[in-house]
């Protein structure tokens, strides 16, 4: 896996927050975007009791199977005994995440250990907390949609170039998903993106 794919063709993203902040939605958006780009995905979510205001985390692994010259689906058992292309485990190990999207300042304390020392933490916090901090709560409130702070953070992450993809395909998927909050989501995403100076 790691031997076959370059760093540009794979990414491990941890999305952390508090139940109700939209961790699942951000993860879904990233995963759908990856598949739209022809990449493969494997991810793990938190459901159940922890969703009631506890710390929640999603593990997302994305990779481009074409980069290794294969479009074969991943199975945890490769038929020919060769290592499978891409990831097989739905979990990110401690110290392996390329990106940590922290939807809440506490997320850095709780789940910061997943971040690779060379990785990037994108943090929603009222005061600077590393090079990629943004007060997504305030920005979301300013545009009148406090609930959409998750998309402000995602827009910012795309804007600073931390993600496997640019802002454009993310915006396309956001549009395609539609739903009653589509316009709010777009606006919040754009607000975060513009804070990154893009």
């Amino acid at each position, binding site marked *: 896996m790691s031997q076959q794919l370059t760093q540009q063709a794979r990414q491990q993203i941890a999305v952390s927050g508090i139940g109700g902040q939209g961790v699942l939605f951000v993860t879904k958006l990233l995963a759908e975007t990856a598949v739209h780009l022809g990449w493969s995905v494997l991810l793990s979510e938190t459901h159940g009791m922890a969703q009631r205001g506890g710390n929640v985390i999603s593990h997302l692994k994305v990779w481009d199977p074409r980069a290794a010259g294969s479009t074969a689906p991943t199975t945890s058992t490769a038929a020919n005994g060769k290592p499978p292309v891409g990831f097989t485990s739905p979990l990110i190990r*401690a110290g392996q995440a390329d990106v940590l999207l922290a939807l809440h300042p506490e997320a850095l304390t709780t789940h910061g250990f997943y971040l690779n020392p060379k990785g990037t933490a994108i943090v929603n916090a009222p005061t600077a907390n590393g090079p990629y901090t943004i007060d997504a709560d305030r920005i979301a409130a300013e545009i009148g949609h406090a609930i959409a702070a998750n998309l402000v953070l995602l827009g910012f992450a795309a804007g600073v170039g931390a993600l496997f993809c640019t802002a454009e395909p993310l915006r396309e998927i956001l549009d395609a998903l539609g739903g009653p909050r589509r316009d709010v989501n777009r606006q919040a995403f754009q607000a975060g993106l513009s804070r990154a100076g893009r």
Partner: protein
Amino acid sequence: MSKRREILLGNEAIARGLVETGCTMTTSYPGTPASEIVGTLAKWKRQGRIAMHVEWSINEKVAFEVALANSYAGRRSAVSMKQVGLNVASDPLMSAAYTGVAGGFLVVVADDPGPHSSQTEQDSRFSAMGALLPVLDPADPREARDWIRPAFELSERYQVPVLLRPTTRVCHARQDLEVADGAESESAAQFKKDPARWAATPKFRFLLHQQLNDKIRRIALDPSFQPTLTNAGALAEAGSERARGACVVASGVVHAHAVELMQELGLWETLPLFRVRQPYPLSPTFRDRLLADYDRVLVLEETYPVIEWQLQDRTRVQGRTTGLVPNAGELLPEVLEDLLRTFADLPAAVRPQPPTAPGRRPTLCAGCPHRAAFHAIKKVFRKGIYPGDIGCYTLGLNLGAVDTVLCMGASISQATGFYFAHRKAAEAAPPIAATIGDSTFYHAGIPALINAVVQGARFVLVVLDNGTTAMTGHQPTPAGGISLDGRPVPKVLIEDLVRACGVKHLAVGDPYRYREFTALLHAAKAHTQADDGGIAVVIARRPCLMDRAQTSDWQAVQVRVGPDCQGCGICTSQFECPALEDRGKDQPIRIDPGLCSGCGVCIEICPHHALEVQ
């Protein structure tokens, strides 16, 4: 037939597998991490996309029996549940192993190593072994879907129920899969009478037991789910000095973790990794070959040593029984890395460590009606005993209003036990107030309530009725009055059931109307203490705020913090509403307008009357 790629949740993949293989009935009771299997089928049913009979049954035992009869009638059937649900259904499970089945019958049981959202980490593969039934251990959503067809075929070939055992990391993983739209196949029901099987008496049961033993012997050798070698290259290298005589055996998602780790640790070419798909019954040829060829065998599986116990050689097999593999908790990739490093004699890993401080604990939502009910219970039943139950309202333990949580329905039976335990105490017996949710009451509360009544127990039971099965994602309850395919069906109401159980004192109230609700609790308490009194039931009725299917008649109240707030912290610690923010001693609290739902209950519970309507 058009094909496309979709990202599917493991449970959605299982639902798809059932539809694609001609399953004509799926039943379930919701429970994390299994809920989205029938949740997905129910959605398709409501949309008119599938003909399959789909039901949220009243509990897992009933669900099992309903689906089993469909299998007796010759049609493919499935029942799904979480691991502790199988405990509820273990009576029919054990017996169905003996009777066998006609149409393919799958028991999908989701285990929860961790545990993340369960009261135990129990391994359903042991339940399969205890029942003498085959069990399959998929590693990802794709396998969970793709194995359903051969699993049905296995079930039909040997005429036995087959268990499919995904874990949380399969159920709640998502993966991009190729999906195709195919026609759902339908099969006619044809129940063939065979009393020697379907209604076997003990004499015939002995014969059925012998037949079952024979089936299990043959299934162990059946080619469909035999163990395989994952890294064929390692076998050629196995002659090299370092790796000689060692191998790893893994199943389920642990195998998926191991595939990544062994590459990263440079073990892929040197350490043979075997994959077990069917942990029970384990292939005897695989077992014999393994023990003949290897001096050291590391077994990696979740959560109990099911494969390990079938490898009957205590000198060469390492795992949970030898203390190498931890005997509790999820086999996370980090744990696995350390195990593989130890086993392969590699240096210890260096990696960031998770914080030792506990994270943020889950809590009832802002405006949750249960919070108001719990606060009132604590006030009325001071120094009481509070048996609790399974659901969102288990979180009443944060408020000090839940003392015990055992299993579904136990609040009522335990209240009965506590009553008799304390009845003859020298001091005055503590008051007892039990809480149970509406769905849990239907599931397992009714026999317990009848028992409490006829034993003459005295306590107050508060049924926290939010009109839905909230914790698991708002599945309907028998009070809904509508089937999944939109047919009107009779509503079964909690108050009717409570009366029919023989309870003489029943009140229904709205916990948002805090003072009136408190008065109902006082009256109920008085009934438990009266000369001609007995058990009393109060139904706390108010729809779940998160359930979009229910409408609320509540006019939201704008609450503001008045000048009398001294920052005493009672509302933030004793009432623990997430919308109330403690800003330290002597500082007035702050209300988070983004979280406050306007229930206004905090106005009632503030001892300083410092919270007021704006």
